[in-house]
């Protein structure tokens, strides 16, 4: 698949001396939903702000659809729509006038039919003549999305789209994003909600302390890095791990009533049959077994806490 955005060696040091990005390389494929995942202050917003032209890079290059974001900024910015994290709106303007304004600002001829469709899709049509300050927070966020889509961009950046949004609206937002992707728009969203990346993304990039530590297909990532946990529900609680299980990666949970065993789900030999055997030999009785796939959250926490440098095994996924 073609990359619509190509970031190479991108670095940013702010005037304060803070280095927000260290030589980031990233390719975004046309038509995908890409989730940029990272804790607060990781450099997510800086990265997308540079691509959109709000922050100047210190080093490196970004190509959008083959055009350089600095030399050919008109072409690249016309192709991009941005929904920032904060709700920045012109309080006194009406919904429809602010969306029309955005379209004009991006150099597109007035198109009332398109704007109507856009506002209907975002359930804003009934509120088109309302002043923005009269709207709820969720509505305002939709207005920002309408503004970002007003000039029919090929790429949409959503910076923390569901921060501070209730569960209901979050689900609506996810549906809307999927619907947009179906119309051919490439979507890059930043989030620190793992649930969001897991739910929506085709690919996930994990950024921490200004470095992209991982880029991977979400499914592959889950498979590749997903460890599983086998929980053995014991008949009688154990105070300590029996000597017979000393060599196993096991721990006790639920006041000794559960025995948790972490294993690599991809490995040829998961160790599960052997463990079951060992339990029988040691005479430890159990009444149930359950296994659980680790979530993206477990993977994420593991990555972010593993320090600055990415583990070798993970780094091979970057720049895909």
């Amino acid at each position: 698949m073609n990359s619509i955005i190509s970031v190479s060696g991108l670095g940013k040091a702010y005037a304060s001396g803070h280095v927000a990005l260290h030589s980031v390389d990233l390719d975004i494929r046309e038509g995908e939903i890409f989730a940029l995942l990272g804790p607060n202050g990781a450099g997510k917003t800086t990265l997308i702000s540079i691509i959109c032209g709000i922050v100047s890079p210190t080093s490196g290059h970004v190509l959008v659809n083959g055009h350089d974001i600095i030399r050919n900024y008109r072409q690249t910015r016309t192709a991009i729509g941005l929904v920032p994290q904060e709700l920045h709106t012109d309080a006194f303007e009406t919904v429809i006038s602010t969306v029309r304004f955005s379209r004009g600002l991006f150099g597109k001829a007035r198109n009332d039919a398109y704007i109507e469709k856009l506002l209907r899709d975002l359930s804003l049509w009934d509120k088109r003549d309302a002043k923005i300050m009269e709207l709820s927070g969720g509505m305002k966020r939709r207005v920002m999305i309408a503004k970002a889509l007003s000039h029919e961009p090929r790429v949409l950046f959503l910076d923390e789209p569901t921060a501070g949004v209730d569960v209901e609206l979050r689900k609506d937002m996810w549906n809307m994003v999927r619907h947009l992707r179906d119309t051919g728009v490439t979507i890059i969203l930043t989030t620190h909600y793992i649930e969001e990346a897991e739910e929506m993304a085709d690919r996930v990039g994990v950024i921490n302390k200004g470095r992209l530590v991982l880029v991977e297909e979400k499914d592959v990532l889950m498979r590749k890095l997903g460890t599983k946990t086998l929980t053995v529900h014991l008949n009688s609680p154990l105070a300590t791990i029996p000597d017979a299980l000393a060599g196993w990666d096991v721990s006790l949970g639920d006041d000794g009533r559960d025995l948790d065993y972490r294993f690599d789900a991809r490995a040829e030999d998961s160790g599960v049959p052997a463990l079951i055997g060992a339990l029988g030999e040691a005479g430890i009785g159990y009444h149930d077994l359950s296994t659980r796939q680790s979530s993206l959250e477990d993977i994420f926490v593991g990555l972010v806490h593993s320090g600055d440098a990415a583990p070798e095994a993970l780094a091979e996924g970057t720049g895909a």
Partner: protein
Amino acid sequence: MSGGINWRGIAAIYFFEIHRFGRTIWTSLMTPVITTSLYFIVFGSAIGSRMTEIDGIAYASFIVPGLIMLSMFQESIFNASFGIYMPKWTGTIYELLSAPLSAIETVIAYVGAAASKSMMIGLVIFATAHLFVDVHVAHPLLMLGFMMLIAVSFCLFGFILGVWAQNFEQLQVVPLLVIMPMTFLGGAFYSIHMLPEPWRTITLFNPVIYLISGFRWTFFGKGDVAIGISISVVAAMLLICIAVIHWVFKTGYRLKK
């Protein structure tokens, strides 16, 4: 977008700004009309009747160009600075910075809108003056041209102020504490020839003297200083503002991190 210039983007900002002025059209227009009327009543009728003519011009007529300039300076700076300060303050500047709009296009749109409003206010005051005094304009085209130059120059200055300001206080300080005194001491209400030395010489360091004198020249065919010098000062101001704005956009000063 065609032809390399984002005309639609310029128009979007221009009409956004004009629409913003439109929301406060009555206060925007009534304020200068009432203020100017008060000046005419106090300086023109009450005090002016006891004043001798200045350079052969009745005092009430003499102050007309100065009054127009006074309001235009203030309005230009205020409107242009507010226009660019507001997006910074509300955060909507993200959209401006991410739009396919060049620095020149951005300045043309904001400064053009603010200057249009200044022209309108200047002309309203000019019309109001006719209610109180006889005003004959010796060089009407030059008068309009000079007004336009002043409107653009001060709007450029206001734009710079709006980029520089980091709070509302800073936005107010310059027009109130710098431009207002400079205008009052810049011969809006008197001819510098009326001043004793050393004040007359000191006054010559105030650039506003040259602006008001030049504008007065377009009305009466004479001013405190030669018209050529006045035009040079306006041109210099225009060029300095353009240079500063060029620097602002080149470095991203207070607009872009």
